[in-house]
């Protein structure tokens, strides 16, 4: 049964007529055309589908869309503002912190939530918080370096 689910998506108010038990990942990718959020495992095991819900990194593949009612959702498409890359995105580019790029949106969103809660993370905090995000290409070291650079750039004032 469809229901209207209202939430804020990348800064825009959304009223979506949708079966509330559907999976957020597929609603984003198919109903809303936001394909930057990726499928990798479907069971919360890889982090490719990471989005931000009210400042926390969440795996969209294990979440029903009704769970976001009344909340704020940010996807990778909502990170750059007015055509300007977010500091984390810039740092990923500058560090070549990706290869195939398939894990990248999930990595960036996870790092984004880390920096929201812990603006100046230690290396081991970065590793701990990123450990559930898988990258098969092996971009890990550069991802860590990129997050460190971004944290420095943002100077403890995340947005």
């Amino acid at each position, binding site marked *: 049964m469809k229901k209207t689910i209202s939430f804020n998506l990348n800064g825009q108010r959304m009223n979506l007529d949708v079966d509330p038990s559907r999976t957020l990942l597929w609603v984003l990718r*198919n109903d809303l055309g936001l*394909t930057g959020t990726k499928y990798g495992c479907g069971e919360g095991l890889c982090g490719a589908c990471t989005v931000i819900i009210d400042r926390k990194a969440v795996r969209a593949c294990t979440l029903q869309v009704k769970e976001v009612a009344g909340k704020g959702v940010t996807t*990778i*498409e909502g990170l750059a503002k007015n055509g300007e890359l977010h500091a984390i995105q810039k740092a990923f580019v500058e560090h070549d912190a990706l290869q195939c790029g398939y894990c990248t949106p999930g990595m960036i969103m996870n790092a984004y939530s880390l920096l929201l809660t812990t603006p100046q993370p230690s290396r081991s905090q*970065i590793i701990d918080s990123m450990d559930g995000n898988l990258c098969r290409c092996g971009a890990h070291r550069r991802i860590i370096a990129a997050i460190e650079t971004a944290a420095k750039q943002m100077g403890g004032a995340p947005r």
Partner: protein
Amino acid sequence: MRNDDGRPQSTHEEYLAMDFSNDPGESLPGLALDRRQFLQLVGGGILVAISTQYLEAVPQREGGRGPRHPLPEDFNAFLRIGEDGRVTGYTGKIEMGQGVITSLPQMLADELDVPLESVDMVMGDTDLCPWDMGTFGSMTTRFFGPPFRAAAAEAKAVLVELAAEKLQVPKDRLRTKAGIVYEEAGEKRVTYAELAKGQKILRHVKGANPEEPSQFTLIGKPTLRRDAVEKVTGKAKFAGDIREPGLLHARLLRPPAHGAKLTHVDVSAAREIPGVQVIQEGDLVAVLYEVPDVAEQALGSIKAQYDRTESNVDDKTIFDHLLKVAPQGQTVAEGGNLAEGEKAARQVVDQTYLNSYVSHAPIETHTALAKVEGSKVTVWASTQTPFPLKEAAASLLGLPAQNVHVIPSFVGGGFGGKSNNQQALEAVRLAKLVGKPVQVMWTRAEEFFYDTFRPAAVVKIKAGVTDAGLISFWDYGVYFAGERGSQQFYNVPHHRTVAYSSGWDGGPGAHPFATGPWRAPANNTNTFARESHIDALAAKAGVDPVEFRMRNLKDERMRRVLQAAADKFGWTPAKAPSGRGYGVACGIDAGTYVAHIAEVTVDKETGHVRVKRVVCAQDMGLCINPEGAKLQMEGCITMGLGYALTEEVQFQGGEIRNRNFDSYELPRFSWVPEIETVIIDAKNSPAQGGGEPAIICMGGLLANAVFDATGARLLQLPMTPERVKAGMPRS
């Protein structure tokens, strides 16, 4: 390879000659556009065809076994100079993370003398790009690079010629820079864009040679990825991101095990779900819906029964099974006299090495979208082999190949696993049946189930050392891995290398499921066995493992690479096991020489191995993009931790037990060591492979480091904590 003087050779040609066959296109006739068709497609601009003189540098069969198409005449239509001054490069290769989307434009821009920013690439599009057998074997830079550069060099010469006519200035007074031809000591100038405008000229210029290393401006310069902005913003399109009006998402019924036969199926519940289409055609049972999660639910409502008569072999018994069914061996290399070598040996080591099946496990699962309109087919696919896919899709539907257009998207990791195109052919078949565009995106469980695993394999080595610490004989047998990397490059007077079953598919009755090429096929297995054995010989001889290798190496290139790694690491000699946890390994892959040194710690209670530091030196000949090359080396080292330490496919007969990442452990952030990479300056020798070589040492490297730490000689990959503990010497 036979050596008359008993000294092994290790020229890269041998490696080129035998390594890289991945033959999806083997029996498929080549199809390429003729020039006229090509011109129609690319429209205005100057199209450059390079003359055949450069193609002689390209093997007629790109290194594979069996016959190949001769290169079509217009295979060399590689670039277009647009009226807006932008340059488009065309390649049949695809981008899957290996970085040729950056290195190919570096070559093109350097040779043509245009800004790197002005170059766009069209990759793998079967209507627009020259035929290509596939992106694998670290062949893009080695084999596609030279003709691509030559095309650009000739294009520049054509432009200069056109400029000379237009400006009425003799050619030799003209120079080029940043897309402009100008008079050296004068005012006259004309842009490439102005020259190209409105022209469709095919002109050849003879003798336009690619640049010498001293002329390079972009080649050899560390350059950041050119696809990064698209990828960090989520805009980059992977196959699953393509949308077409009326698109349906398909989920297919899969057997519980390889070899299981569908005996009964009840789809009635699925048919009742509004809007769900059910397709049943022989073994093909699929449900389709506008969104994939609902299709998934519909699939779950299908009841199916299977007849399972698969073999009893499992991940423990597989090695005995393989040895039992092994075919007659083929001698790959031989020299001297083994009996004599054995007589000269003071110490002999005779050991058997095992490695399990390993999955490719790209984070992007196999995905494709197919659209069939009348007799015209368009396929967007996550594929390493767009041209073979085109042929296969055409033959599936009984259409001429030119009716099929394959458009590869960005590929979210391949590693050799995305060459079969099963998912794309499923999408094509379904799209034809339902008359609408269909997307097939495999689940993680399907990805594990249909993966063409790196084959389980066995290597038996018997070898000996003399009193002087010299290897006197080397008797090597490799079962089911394949021969890439089995050739001995140490200096051994009496040796034999035998391959039992060549290539990676094993032949009937060998593997209970499909096997295939996995990043540096065969070489991970062969290098693990060889480098472990070399280390075991060094330990027997009581010689430091780096010193032992040097003592037995005449190959200057390898000596230099090993020395570079040792210097960077700060190696100090000691006989293993020294307790320091240092390991060394070296090897050759895709023409590139690598040497690695690692430091590990081993938890003696748990058997857990922690890799602290890895240093890797690499001689890859001319390095087009040192930044990209380092990225690949780091990626290889990181990925290689997996097959060395944890990755192992669990199965019972044809049933794959690994369904997701909770039962198949990929390397994670917390595992990643400090990594230092060194690229040897070798710009005067031809460019070699970069995407695979640095992964080949990881098994032997870490096995040797574990030995050095604990005295445990691990003979099986992966080196799980249980195996490490079991291997520990009892004190």
